[in-house]
């Protein structure tokens, strides 16, 4: 199902802190199936890719997401997103 060009679209993903370390890259552009409509769908799909993603999202509720530099919830739509970020709870300040 995912092998046809029309059924996926490229998404730019960026990762920070231990999410980045577990996945093993700081950013990548991946072909994501159109069925993945929300951030939660994307997380589920990523977890199936390999062990690194599975580890990064093993406690999915803890990982935060942002679309185009704005914090979003898991149910946020991916429509029109240019850059999707995943990261642990912030510890700045």
């Amino acid at each position, binding site marked *: 199902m995912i092998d046809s060009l029309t059924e996926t679209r490229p998404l730019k993903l960026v990762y*920070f802190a231990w999410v980045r370390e577990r996945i093993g890259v700081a950013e990548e552009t991946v072909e994501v199936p159109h069925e993945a409509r929300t951030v939660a769908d994307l997380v589920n799909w990523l977890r199936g890719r390999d062990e690194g993603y599975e580890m990064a999202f093993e406690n999915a509720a803890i990982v935060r997401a942002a679309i185009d530099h704005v914090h979003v919830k898991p149910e946020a739509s991916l429509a029109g997103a240019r850059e999707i970020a995943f990261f642990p709870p912030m510890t700045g300040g």
Partner: protein
Amino acid sequence: MFPVVRIQREDFDLNAEVKALSRDRVDIGAVVTFAGLCRDEGGKLAALELEHYPGMAEAEIGRVAAEAVERWPLTGLVAIHRYGLIRPGEQIVLVVATSRHRRAAFEAAEFLMDYLKTRAPFWKREHLSDGTIGGWVEAKADDDTAAARWN
């Protein structure tokens, strides 16, 4: 009034930021500053490494600062956050809020810090005194509670 937000590797100068907000003005009654410094945690820590999300860090702190400007009658607001390797005793973050009266300046500075702690995309990792790299600092429930006060 447009808040100043800067994300930078280099150190900042508290005095210069206060002077920039208050120079040639005679309508400011209160200047509140907050500087967050790196502690050595009783000798355990050699440095803190601060990772950030470039672009979003500026945008998010800008949104929080804009909200502070909406909520309090400020005459000036500055937020500066550093990234990179920061050693004990060094400065990490600065907030300066000025207003006619002290309550607004105090509240805006505290609000900005509380939100910055929980919403600005920065992550701290410990570099230990024994030369090893420690873990990522965990977010504190305390900080969420502090931020929730302002809702």
